[in-house]
C-alpha cells in the first residue's frame, strides 16, 4: 500500500475536492481521439482499433484515479492507494490536470501557468479553486512517482 501525507492545509483540500470531482466527471466526456489521434489515419481499421484500445486504457486509468480521489482519508490530507493501481492513477492524474487546465484555467495562458506568472489575487473564485486543484493534483502525482521509485 502506498501512503503519504499532502502538504496542503486540509481546509483548502476540503474546499477544492468538490471542484476536482466536477473535473473528474468531465473526463469521460472529453473527445480524447482529437487530442491523441491515431497517426495512420488512412488505415481505417487501425484507426478504429487505436481509438477503442486507447479509450479502454483511459477508462482503466480513471477507475484507479477514482479509488484515489474517493479515499476516506483524502479530505484530511492523506493519500492511500494500492501499489498495483499507482501507474494507472499517475496516468489518470495527467488526464485530470489536462481537464482542469482546459475547463477551469482557460483564461490563464500556457506561459503564465508554466511559470506561475500571474496574479492569483485578481482571479475570480472558480479560477482560484481551479488553480489550487491543479497544484494539489501535481503534488499527488509527484508523490506517487516518488513512491513508485
Amino acid at each position: 500500500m502506498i501512503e503519504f501525507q499532502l502538504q496542503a492545509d486540509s481546509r483548502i483540500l476540503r474546499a477544492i475536492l468538490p471542484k476536482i470531482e466536477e473535473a473528474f466527471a468531465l473526463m469521460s466526456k472529453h473527445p480524447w481521439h482529437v487530442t491523441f489521434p491515431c497517426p495512420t489515419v488512412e488505415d481505417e481499421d487501425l484507426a478504429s482499433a487505436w481509438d477503442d484500445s486507447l479509450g479502454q486504457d483511459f477508462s482503466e486509468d480513471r477507475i484507479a484515479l477514482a479509488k484515489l480521489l474517493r479515499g476516506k482519508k483524502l479530505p484530511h490530507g492523506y493519500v492511500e492507494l494500492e501499489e498495483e493501481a499507482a501507474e494507472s492513477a499517475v496516468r489518470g492524474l495527467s488526464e485530470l490536470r489536462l481537464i482542469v487546465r482546459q475547463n477551469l484555467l482557460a483564461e490563464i495562458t500556457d506561459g503564465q501557468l508554466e511559470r506561475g506568472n500571474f496574479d492569483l489575487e485578481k482571479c475570480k473564485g472558480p479560477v482560484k479553486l481551479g488553480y489550487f486543484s491543479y497544484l494539489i493534483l501535481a503534488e499527488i502525482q509527484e508523490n506517487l512517482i516518488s513512491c513508485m521509485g
Partner: protein
Amino acid sequence: MSLSLPIPALKEKLEEELDTSKPWKVIVLNDPVNLMSYVVMVFRKIFGFNETKANKHMMEVHELGKSVLWTGEREQAESYVYQLQRWKLQTIMEVDD
C-alpha cells in the same frame, strides 16, 4: 472517373506516407500540463533511457517544443506513439528525410 489525386503535392505526400521502407521519427510535443518528473519517468519506462538521456529529451521538449525520441520502422514507431499517448503525452510520427 479518375481516382488520381488532383494535387501533385498531395499525391506525393500520400506516396511518401505509404512508403514503408523509409524510417519514421517518433516526436513528443510540449504541453503545459505534464510535470518534468512525469515526462522523464515516461521516457525511461518506454524507451529504457537512463536518467541523463531522459532528462535531455525532456528539456528539448520543454525548450524547443518537441523532441525526436526514436527513429526506425513504421510499425515500431506506431507502437511507441501508442504507448506515449497512453501516458497522455502528445506524440506524432513523421517520415525521416
